[in-house]
C-alpha cells in the first residue's frame, strides 16, 4: 500500500517536522486534504503559514476556533470527510490556560493585565512550540476530529519542536520562578534572591522588577498544571496513534538532517518516525528527453540555435535529476524501516487550493510514472 495512504488511515495525529523553507506547511495542508478525501474528519493546525496559503485555507484572520475549509470541487460532495484548519495563536492558548487554571478569577485578571505576561508569548523562546503542544492537547480530546495534522514552527533545526517543552521549561521551571519571588527558604536561597533583586533593580528599575515578580508569582502557580499537560503529551507523542514525518528538500543538508532527525527522534525520544517526504524533487523527470536538433522534422535555423543554447541547461537539469534520484536512495538507506516519498516542485501554485489538490493527488496516486510540467 502507498505509505502515505496507510499513515492517513491508521493514525490520529501526524506531526510534520522540517527546517524552514522546505514547504512543510503546504505539505501538511495537502496531507490534510488527502486524508479528508479518505473520509476522515481532519484538522490541520498550521503555524505561521505564508499569507497566500493562509488565505487559501481561510485562516488569515486568526480565527479563535478551527474553521471549515471550503472543499467544493476538491472532495467528493457525497463523502463524509471534512477538512478544517486553524492557525496557532500562542497568546490565545496562553490566555485559555490562565483562565482555566488560575487559583481565582482575581488572579487570572491580575495576570492578564500584567505587562510582562501580555508580551510573554512573543518574547519567550520556545513559547510558540510550547503553546502548539498545549493546543494539540485540547484538540486530541475533541471528538469532531479523527485526524489532526500538526505543522511545527519554522526553524533551522527540524527537531526544535521536540525539544521545545524542555527549552520553554528552562524558563517555566518552578525552581527558577521561586528565585524571583521573595519568601522563605535557606540562607543561600535568600541570598540568591537578594542578588537577583539587586541586578533586576539596577537593570529595570524597581517598578518593572515588581511587575516581573508579580508575573513570576502568578504564572508560577500555573506551572504544575502546564507541566502535567506537557508530560501527558510526551507520553501521547510516544504512543501508537502518533507518527512523525520529516519534510525535507533536495539540498546538501538533507542527508545530514535526516540522519540527525531519525536518530534523535527514534533512539533518544522514542517517537515513531513514519518516513521522509522529499519535497520539490526532480525524480519525476526521469523519463524526460534531451533536446536534440536531429529530432526536428523541418530545418529551422532559429530553433537549432536555441536548442544548442538550451543544451547546457538541459545537461544541468538532467544532472540535478540524477542527484535527486541518488539522494532518494541514500535517504532510504539512512532511514532504516522508514520510507522516502518524493513530491514534485509545483512553484507558486502550491499555495492555492488547486495546488494543494494536485499535491494531495501525488500523495495518494503514487509517486512514480508521473510527469510534471
Amino acid at each position, binding site marked *: 500500500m502507498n505509505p502515505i495512504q496507510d499513515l492517513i488511515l491508521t493514525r490520529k495525529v501526524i506531526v510534520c517536522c522540517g527546517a524552514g523553507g522546505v514547504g512543510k506547511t503546504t505539505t501538511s495542508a495537502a496531507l490534510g486534504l488527502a486524508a479528508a478525501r479518505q473520509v476522515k474528519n481532519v484538522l490541520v493546525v498550521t503555524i505561521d503559514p505564508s499569507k497566500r496559503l493562509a488565505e487559501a485555507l481561510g485562516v488569515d484572520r486568526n480565527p479563535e476556533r478551527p474553521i471549515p475549509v471550503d472543499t467544493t470541487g476538491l472532495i467528493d460532495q457525497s463523502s463524509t470527510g471534512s477538512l478544517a484548519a486553524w492557525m496557532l495563536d500562542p497568546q490565545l492558548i496562553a490566555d485559555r490556560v490562565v483562565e482555566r487554571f488560575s487559583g481565582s478569577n482575581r488572579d487570572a485578571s491580575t495576570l492578564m493585565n500584567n505587562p510582562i505576561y501580555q508580551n510573554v508569548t512573543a518574547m519567550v523562546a520556545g513559547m510558540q512550540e510550547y503553546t502548539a503542544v498545549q493546543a494539540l492537547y485540547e484538540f486530541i480530546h475533541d471528538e469532531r476530529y479523527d485526524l489532526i495534522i500538526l505543522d511545527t514552527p519554522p526553524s533551522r533545526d527540524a527537531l526544535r519542536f521536540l525539544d521545545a517543552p524542555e527549552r520553554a521549561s528552562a524558563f517555566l521551571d518552578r525552581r527558577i520562578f521561586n528565585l524571583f519571588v521573595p519568601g522563605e527558604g535557606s540562607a543561600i536561597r535568600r541570598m540568591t534572591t537578594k542578588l537577583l533583586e539587586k541586578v533586576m533593580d539596577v537593570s529595570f528599575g524597581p517598578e518593572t522588577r515588581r511587575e516581573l515578580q508579580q508575573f513570576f508569582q502568578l504564572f508560577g502557580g500555573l506551572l504544575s498544571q502546564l507541566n502535567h499537560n506537557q508530560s501527558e503529551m510526551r507520553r501521547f507523542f510516544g504512543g501508537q496513534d502518533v507518527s512523525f514525518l520529516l519534510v525535507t528538500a533536495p539540498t546538501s543538508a538533507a542527508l545530514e538532517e535526516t540522519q540527525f532527525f531519525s536518530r534523535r527522534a527514534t533512539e533518544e525520544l522514542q517517537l515513531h518516525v513514519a518516513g521522509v517526504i522529499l519535497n520539490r524533487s526532480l525524480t519525476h523527470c526521469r523519463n*524526460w528527453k534531451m533536446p536534440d536538433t536531429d529530432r526536428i522534422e523541418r530545418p529551422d535555423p532559429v530553433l537549432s540555435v536555441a536548442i544548442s543554447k538550451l543544451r547546457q541547461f538541459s545537461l544541468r537539469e538532467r544532472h540535478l535529476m540524477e542527484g535527486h534520484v541518488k539522494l532518494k536512495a541514500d535517504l532510504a538507506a539512512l532511514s532504516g524501516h522508514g520510507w522516502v516519498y518524493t513530491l514534485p516542485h509545483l512553484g507558486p501554485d502550491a499555495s492555492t487550493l488547486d495546488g494543494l489538490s494536485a499535491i494531495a493527488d501525488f500523495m495518494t496516486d503514487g509517486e512514480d510514472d508521473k510527469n510534471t510540467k
Partner: protein
Amino acid sequence: MYFLNRHTLLISGKGGVGRTAVSAAIGLASSKAKKRTLVLEIAYEEGSQSALGARFGRPDLNEEACPINDFLAIGRLNAKAGHSLFLRTILPSKTLIAAALRSKAVHKFLTAAPSLHEMGIFYHLLTLLQKTRSDGTRQYELIIIDMPATGHTLALTGLPAILLRLIPAGPIARALKEGQSILNNPELCEAWIVTLPEKLPVTEALELVDGLTETDVTVGGMILNRMPPDPFTDDERAALDAYCDAEHFFGQLTLARIRAAKVALSELKNRFDSPVLDLPEVVDTDLVTNPLTAYIGELMGTES
C-alpha cells in the same frame, strides 16, 4: 553608489535566499574600497557552526572580531557576551559583578526570561556600533549584519519599542534608546532585503518591507539574488516553447524559471519604490574569486 554611505546595513530576508553570501560579498567589496568594515552574524545557539565564518574558512568563528584583511573583520554576536558587557556597566561594585557573572541563577534568568536573550544580542551589537579608536573616530566605518530569517529579524528590530513599553527607565531603557538612535536613523542605518526572482519570495519580501517599516527601520532597497542569465532571443524562446509543448524535455524547467524571473523582477520594480539590484546566479562559492564580490563592487562604484 550603494551601501558605502551608511554606517550600518541590516541584510535581511527569508531563509535560503543567500543573505550570508550577500553580506560577505558586500563586506569584501567594502574592504577593497579601504573602508574599515565589520561583518556580523548572530549566534542564536551557543556553539553552533558559523555560516558566515565558513565563507571565510573559519567555521568555528566565535569571537567579536576576527580579522580577514587590513580592512575587514568578521564577528559573531551572542547573548552571553552582551549580558556580561551589560552587567559590567550597570553593577556598582566589582564584587557584585563577579558574583552576578558567577551565579547560575542570574545566568538562567538572563537566558530564559522574556526577551533578555534578544536584549543580550542587541547590547552586544550596540557596544560594537559605538566602538571608537583612540582618536575618537569609529572603529568600524561600515558594519554589515547578516540578520536572522524574517521572524527573528522583526523580533530584533521591534525589540526596543516593545521593551521600552515594559521598561521605561533605567540602564536597559537607555541602551535601547541609544540603539534606536542608530537603527532608526535612515542617515546611519538601512535594511536591505535579499530575495529570489520568483513569485512567492517577492511577495514575502514586500511583506518584510512593511514589517521593517513598522519597526521604524528604513529599507534601502532589495537585492534580487540568483537572477538566471537569459541567453535566448525572443524568437528562440518562442521556437523552444513550441518545441517543448509536445513532449517533456530537460531544460524546460530552466526556460520556465527564466521567464518567471523576468516577471518577478518587473513586478518588484512596479510595486517597490526604492532601488532593486539584481545579482547574477553564480556557481562559484569562493568569495575572493566569486564574481558576486566584483559585481557588488561595481554597484558600490568602487570598481569599474
